C-alpha cells in the first residue's frame, strides 16, 4: 500500500519534510517498499493516514535511495518508524529498550494511532521522550 503514501526521494526532501511541519508530528518510515515487514507496516500507515492527518503526517523513505540517514539513525532494520515534531526527534519508551524508533511492523491500527497521539501530545508539551500507552517488551509480544 506504499503507493498511497508520499515518498521522500532525497535527504534534502526528508529534512524539508521535517522542517515544514509546524503543527503536526512527522512520522517517517525508513525501509524498502518491497520489504515484507514494510509492507505490513505500510498497510497500517496507509489506512490510518487519513485518520491522523490533523496531528500527524506520514512519509516513506527508501533507505537505499536515501542512505544519508543510515548511519545517523542506525537504520539497519527492515522497517523503522521515527517521529519528529518541530525539527525534534521525539523518543518513545516502548519497553523494548530502544526508545528512538519502532523497528518492527505494528499491525494494529488503533495501537499505532494511540502511539502517534501520545507522541503528539507529549511533543506539544515539550517532552523529548514519551511513554507508549502499551508496553511492547518481549514479555508482551510473545
Amino acid at each position, binding site marked *: 500500500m506504499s503507493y498511497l503514501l508520499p515518498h521522500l526521494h532525497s535527504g*534534502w526532501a526528508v529534512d524539508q519534510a521535517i522542517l515544514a511541519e509546524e503543527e503536526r508530528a512527522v512520522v517517517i518510515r525508513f525501509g524498502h517498499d518491497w520489504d515484507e515487514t514494510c509492507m505490513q507496516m505500510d498497510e497500517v500507515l496507509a489506512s490510518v493516514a487519513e485518520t491522523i492527518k490533523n496531528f500527524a503526517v506520514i512519509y516513506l523513505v527508501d533507505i537505499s535511495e536515501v542512505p544519508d540517514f543510515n548511519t545517523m539513525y542506525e537504520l539497519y532494520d527492515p522497517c523503522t518508524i521515527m517521529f519528529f515534531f518541530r525539527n525534534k526527534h521525539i523518543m518513545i519508551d516502548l519497553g523494548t529498550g530502544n526508545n528512538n524508533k519502532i523497528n518492527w511492523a505494528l499491525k494494529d491500527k488503533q495501537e499505532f494511532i494511540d502511539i502517534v497521539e501520545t507522541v503528539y501530545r507529549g511533543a506539544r508539551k515539550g517532552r523529548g521522550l514519551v511513554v507508549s500507552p502499551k508496553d511492547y517488551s518481549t514479555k508482551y509480544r510473545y
Partner: protein
Amino acid sequence: MHLFVRNFAGRTLSLSLPEGGATVGALKESVEAREGIPARHFGVLYGNKELTEGDSLLESYGVSGGATLHLTGKLLGGMQAPVVPKPRLDFLNSRPPANYVAGLGRGATGFTTRSDIGPARAAPDLPDRTATTIGGAAAAPAGAGRGRGKGGEAEEEEEAEEKGYDENQKFDEFEGNDVGLFASGEYDEDDKEADAVWEDIDKRMDSRRKDRREARLKKEIEKYRASNPKITEQFADLKRKLVTLSATEWESIPEIGDYSLRNKKKRFESFVPPPDTLFERAKQEHEHATALDPRSRAAGVDTPYGQTPVTDLTAVGEGRGTVLSLKLDRLSDSVSGLTVVDPKGYLTDLKSMKINSDAEISDIKKARLLLKSVIQTNPKHAPGWIAAARLEEVAGKIQAARNFIQQGCEECPQNEDVWLEACRLATPKNAKAVLAQGVKAIPNSVKLWMQASKLEGDDISKSRVLRKALEHIPDSVRIWKAVVELAKEDDARILLSRAVECCPLHVELWLALARLETYDNAKRVLNKAREMLPTETSIWITAAKLEEANKNTVTVARIIDRAIRSLQRDGVSIDREAWMKEAESAERAGSVATCQAIINSTIGIGVEEEDRKRTWVADADECKKRGSVETARAIYAHALAAFPGKKSVWLRAAQLEKSHGTRESLDAMLKKAVGYCPQAEVLWLMGAKEKWLAGDVPSARAILQEAYAAIPNSEEIWLAAFKLEFENHEPERARMLLAKARERGGTERVWMKSAIVEREIGNVDKERELLEEGLEKFPQFHKLWLMLGQLKDRIGQPEAARETYDKALRNCPHSTPLWLSAAALEEKVGGLSKARAVLTKARLKNPHNPELWLAAIRVEAHAGNKKESESLMAKALQDCPSSGRLWAEAIDMAPRPQRKSKSVDALKRCDQDPFVIAAVAKLFWQDRKVDKARSWLNRAVTLSPDIGDFWAQLYKFELQHSGEDVQQEVIQRCAAAEPRHGERWTKVSKAVENAHFSTEQILKKLVLAAKDEETM
C-alpha cells in the same frame, strides 16, 4: 536580409538575418549576441511601431532589407506581480540543491545505541567538505547492496564538477573576493615608480594642509579643555594657597578613604565550614596533651568524655597551645640530655587515657607495648600492672584486664592498690573472694578491710568483717568508727571503751564515749581522756558543758580556768578567736554558763592593755551581729567590770539589753550604769525615758531628779524634765521648771520651749514677752523670730508680723522657714506681687534652694498663674536639677498624659529620692496598679521614715486597698519610725490644738484631712 540597428549609444550595427522567415525573436537574439544586452530588456522600433510579437515574421511589420531599426529601453512600471505562495510540499517534487548534506540543513544529530556498527554521528560541521563527501561516498556502498547499485558514485562526480567556485579562494573583508584580481601580476619597476609618485603626492598634500590641520587640532583641544577642565586646573588657585597652610592645619587634613562604589559593595565573602575531621584532630591533640587534666584522670569512673564531637574552639586553641608546650618540653629534653618526663607520672597518665576515636587505637597499641615492657622489666612494680589493667579496661577488654590484675596480684601481693583494683575489676561475685585473698596477703591493710566491709550487704555482716579487721589492726580509728557507727548504743559504749584503750589519742572516740556514759562515768572518762590528751581543748569544754548540764554552774568556771591554766602550762597557745567561737557554739548548744565562763577567762588573753576596750566592743558587736546575744552580754559584762567608768560601753550594753533583753534587765543595767557614770546625761535620759514609756511617770520624774542632783546644770535634763511634765499635761510644772532653767541661764531652746508652753496655755502676752526677751539674748535664733512672727500673725496684726519678719530676715537671712513664712504672710495679706518679691529676694540670698523655688511655684499656682508657675518650675529644675521635691511637684503639675514621661525624667535625675518615688507611687495608685503602688510607697517610707507625709499616703492607700491588719501594721511601723517632717505632717503636728497628739492620732487626722482632697 541585411538590417541596420541603431543602438542606445547611437552607433549603427549591421545585422544579416536569413532571408525570408526571419522572426522578431531571431532579430532580438542576434542583437543580444552583438550587444550583450538581454533580449527582454530592450524593444525594437521600426518607424513608430514596436516589434512586440516575438514569433511573427519581420515582414508582417513591413521590415524589408536595408531598413534601420531602433533599440528602445524597456521602462519598468505598472504593478508588481503577486508573490505566489510557495507550495509547502514542493520538496516532494523539486530537486534537492546540489551538494546538500542530509541532516545538515536542520541540524540533525543522530544517536548511538550500537557502537559495533560504527560512529553513528556523522559530523555535520566538519571543516573540510571533501571529508564529508568521502563520508557520504563511503556510506553509499553500504546501502548499495540493497539498492540501486552503483549509480550513486557517478552522481557524486557530477556534483563535484558543479561546484563552480574555488574552495581555496581567499576572502578579504575589505575588498571581498577581488583581492586576488591582480595578485597574480608581478611587482615590477613601473609599479615601484607609480608607488613612489603617489607617496610624493600624499606627502605634498599633507604638508600643505599641515598648518591648518594643526591649528584646528589645537583649537579643538582647547575647546575640549574649556568644557571639561582637569581637576588640577579646577583647584589650581586652592593649591597655590597651600603655601599659607600651617603645620597643624596640614596635619588635620583628613585622609581620603576609598569611597568608590566598587569597594563599598561588599565583596563576596565565602566561608568554608571547616571539616569535622579538623575539630576531631584538634580535640585529640588536646586530649593527648592534657592527660594530666584532672577531668580525665578519674579513669573508668565517668562516661567517656567527648564521644560526641564537641566543637569547642577555645578547647581547640588550648589543645594546640598545650601540644606546642609539650613539644617544646621534649625539645628541651633532648637539648639538655636529661629527661624531665617523670616515667611514673607518665605511666599513671597512660592509665587515664580513654579511647575517643579510632585514631587512638594506635595509641592504645603503643601504650600496650610500653606497659608490657614495664611489666616485664619490673614485674614487682604494682602501678605498671594497674596501668596495664586499666588500659585493657579502657580498650573494652575487661577479661584481659582481669588477667593482668590477677598476674599483678600474684607478682605484688603486698600492694593494696593492686588488690583494690582487682576487686574493682572483678565481677561482684568474685570480688569478695579477691578481697579475701587480699586481706590474707596484707592482713593489716585498713583500705582492704574497709572495702571488704563495703562489699557486705547488711549491717551485721559488715560489723563482723570490721571486727575481724580490728583483730588484725586494733589501732585503726577508721575501722573503730565504722564499727561504732554500725553498733547499737550499748554495744557502742562497750566498743568505744575498748576503742579508747586501743587508740587513746583520738579525742573523738573519747568524746563519743563520754556522751554515751552516765554523768559520773562520763566525768571519769573525761578525766582519763585529759590525762591522755592534756593539750586538747574540746575535752575541757565538754567537761564544762557536762557540769553545766548537771547544774554545777560553779564548777564550770573552775573547769574553764583550770583548762586555761593547764593548757598554758602544757604550752598550748590560747587563741582568743577560737575560744570565742567555742563560746558561741556553747551558747548555741544552750550552755550559757560555759559560754560566760569561757568569755570571762579568755577574753582578756592576748589583748594589749590600751586596746582592750576597743577590741572587746568590736567583739561584742560581732557577736551581736551573729546573733550570739549571751556571748555579747558576757563580753560587755566583762568589759564593764574592767571599765566601770566608760560611758560608751555602758551605752552599748544598755542598747544590747534594750534590743535583746527584758525591760527589767535594761533597768538594772541602766541603774548600774548611772551608778558608775553619774555624769552621763544620756544614761539618765535613757533611764527616764524607759520609765516614762513603761508608764511609770513618778519614777521617771525621780530618775530625772536624781540626774539633776548628779549633773546640776545640764540643760538636757532640764528639758527632759520639762518635756515629761509637758507631755503629761502639767503645764504649770513645766512652766516652773522652765522658769528655773531660764534663771540658770539656759540656752535659746529653753526660751523657745517656754514660749511653746505659753502658747499652749494661750497666754499671748506672756508668750510675746518671753519671745522678745529671748530674742534680745539670741537674735540669731530664727525659730524664736518665726514664733514671734507667727504669734503676731495669729493675733491679727499682719503689719506687726511683717515688721517682725523684716527684722528677723535682717538677722538671719539664710533661714528658709523665715523666708517662707514671710512670703506666706504676704500672700495671705493679699499682695501677690509682694510675696513674689519676697521669694525672689529669698532666692537671691539663698541660691539653689528648692524649697524657696517650690514656694514661689505654689504662690503662682494659687494665684492661678499656671503659665508663670510652669516657667518657674522649669527654671527651678534648671537651678536644682537633683531636687526630688521639685521633681515630685513637677510630676504633679504636669497634665495627666505627660506625667509618666515626666516621672521617667525624674527617676533618671534622682532615682533614690523618696519624694520622686512617692510621686511615682501615686501615679501607680491612680492607674490602679495596687501591687506596684504599694511596693513603691514602701520604698519611699523606708528611704526616709522621718517624713510623715509618706506614712499618711501609705496609710490612706492601705485604707483603700487592704484589710485591717495591714493598716494596723502601717500604724505600728509609723509609730516606731516617729516621723517629724513632711509638709502636711508638720502642718498637723505643729498645730497648737494637736500638740499632745501621738503619732497615730496625727496620722489618722492627716488622712482625714486629706480625704477631702482628690489625692494626697
